[in-house]
């Protein structure tokens, strides 16, 4: 799988921190392309790649645009395992089976303006978590969050680029006349929604 991290305009160590989050869920053969806007950030990324024994290359696209591609190989995985002694008890920190349900474009009930602002902040905060959900389901008013012009769109796209499955209810998009405007993830149906919810270890509904 190929991942993307857009760290343009972000000061060190943010490019490295965001890349590490993606690296944590990569498997052998995966790669991540990190965009940064200065050569020092490139050096800091390559320094990390050197320590983690990742295959790495960088290219200059413009004087304020650089790309670093880091690839996880069998060798780098083996090196990582050799470097870290196995702990006695391994807690599963991957938040496997976590599904986030966004059933409204507002968070909580009360003032709608506040509710929308809170929802935008929640989706942003999701992008900053150490462990990300497997899936985000959007239905009813939530379908307004994944379409063109939605304030939450950029953050949902970021989550998708990091491997989070984004699924929006087709009936709901149709109901609000937004079918053509869906801008991230895929359209889903009630059968799939029911299956995702039944199969979830945890359902988070803000």
């Amino acid at each position, binding site marked *: 799988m190929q991942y993307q991290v857009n760290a343009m305009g972000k000061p*060190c*160590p943010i490019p490295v921190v965001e890349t590490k989050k993606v690296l944590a869920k990569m498997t052998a053969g995966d790669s991540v392309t990190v965009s940064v806007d200065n050569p020092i950030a490139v050096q800091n990324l390559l320094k990390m790649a050197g320590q983690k024994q990742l295959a790495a290359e960088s290219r200059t696209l413009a004087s304020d645009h650089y790309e670093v591609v880091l690839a996880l190989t069998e060798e780098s995985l083996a090196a990582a395992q050799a470097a870290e002694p196995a702990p006695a008890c391994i807690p599963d920190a991957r938040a496997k089976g976590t599904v986030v349900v966004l059933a409204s474009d507002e968070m909580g009930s009360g003032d709608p303006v506040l509710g929308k602002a809170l929802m*935008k902040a929640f989706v942003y905060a999701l992008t900053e978590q150490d462990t990300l959900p497997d899936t985000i389901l959007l239905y009813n008013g939530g379908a307004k969050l994944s379409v063109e012009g939605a304030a939450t769109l950029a953050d949902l796209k970021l989550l998708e680029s990091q491997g989070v499955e984004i699924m929006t209810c087709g009936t709901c998009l149709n109901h609000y006349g937004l079918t053509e405007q869906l801008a991230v993830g895929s359209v889903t149906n009630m059968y799939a929604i029911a299956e995702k919810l039944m199969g979830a270890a945890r359902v988070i509904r803000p």
Partner: protein
Amino acid sequence: MNEQPIVFCKGGGCTAKLGPGALAHVLDKLPPFTDPNLLVGFDHSDDAAVYRLTDDIAMVQTLDFFPPMVEDPYIFGQIAAANALSDIYAMGGTVKTALNIVCFPEKMDLNILGRILQGGAEKVREAGGVLAGGHSIADSDVKYGLSVTGIIHPDKVLENNACCPDDVLILTKPLGVGIVCTADRVGQASEEAMAAAITSMTTLNKYAAEALAPFAPHACTDVTGFGLLGHLNKMLASRCGAQLHWKALPRIPEALDYADEFLLTAAAQRNRNHLEGKVEFQNIPFAAEELLFDPQTSGGLLVSLPADRADEALAAVQALGLGCGIIGRVTREHPGIICVTE
């Protein structure tokens, strides 16, 4: 939702310094000033300027200001002031007057500015100086510091590059505050590590300077944005070399862990680039290298003094309570090169 909230702390302190390479490039193009009374100026790359007024009194001048590196405005004020005052101590001088330098967003709560200035004023008072005025401008980000004037006897100026072969090098504060503040900014520093960093950054170098003065130091500088190796490199001035032992480095213990997590600043990498070919690492861990390049805000004094009373001198600094140590020695061999071993 269009208006972004003003962020107080974006990662500042001495990590916000311009890189040493970029700076030298510009400074080299300035016309040189010649005045026999200017004892220490640009060409010395020293901590502060020294100008002789009479045969007995020279004026020491410095200024330093930067963006916040901690969330608490009062602590930021203390740190910025301790950092600015430090240059006077690094020259061996006594603080006399200080002027505030302030950049502050018009839309931000003025109480925050009040707390910053309060923290700064308390440090000036602790230094025995007088806060005599200042200048403030509206800016998009917060920046604060001081212009400080001190005095010194013209014959007792402690230059930063007058070290001698076989001198012992003492560092008076723990390394790693840059790494710890960077880890804190991304929510990954422990409370203990951050508390240790704040204690170190808010401590005036006055006490270490006073404690070491009786041991006749040859050279002294304060370790700030260019990191330990950057400032040591200036101290050696291509005349001497240095041998350091990384395990002897006083440090905030967690800083090594955070370096292993790559919570590193751009400034540290610029420092590394600038010293390419001037440092030899012999079998030392990656995190220790990063500690040596880590930009320090309000860092300790790096003092080069005769070896015969080194243990006594170290004991005098240890009594102050901060992490400190004899980190290595000045060598006649490999001039301009710093060797770091176990």
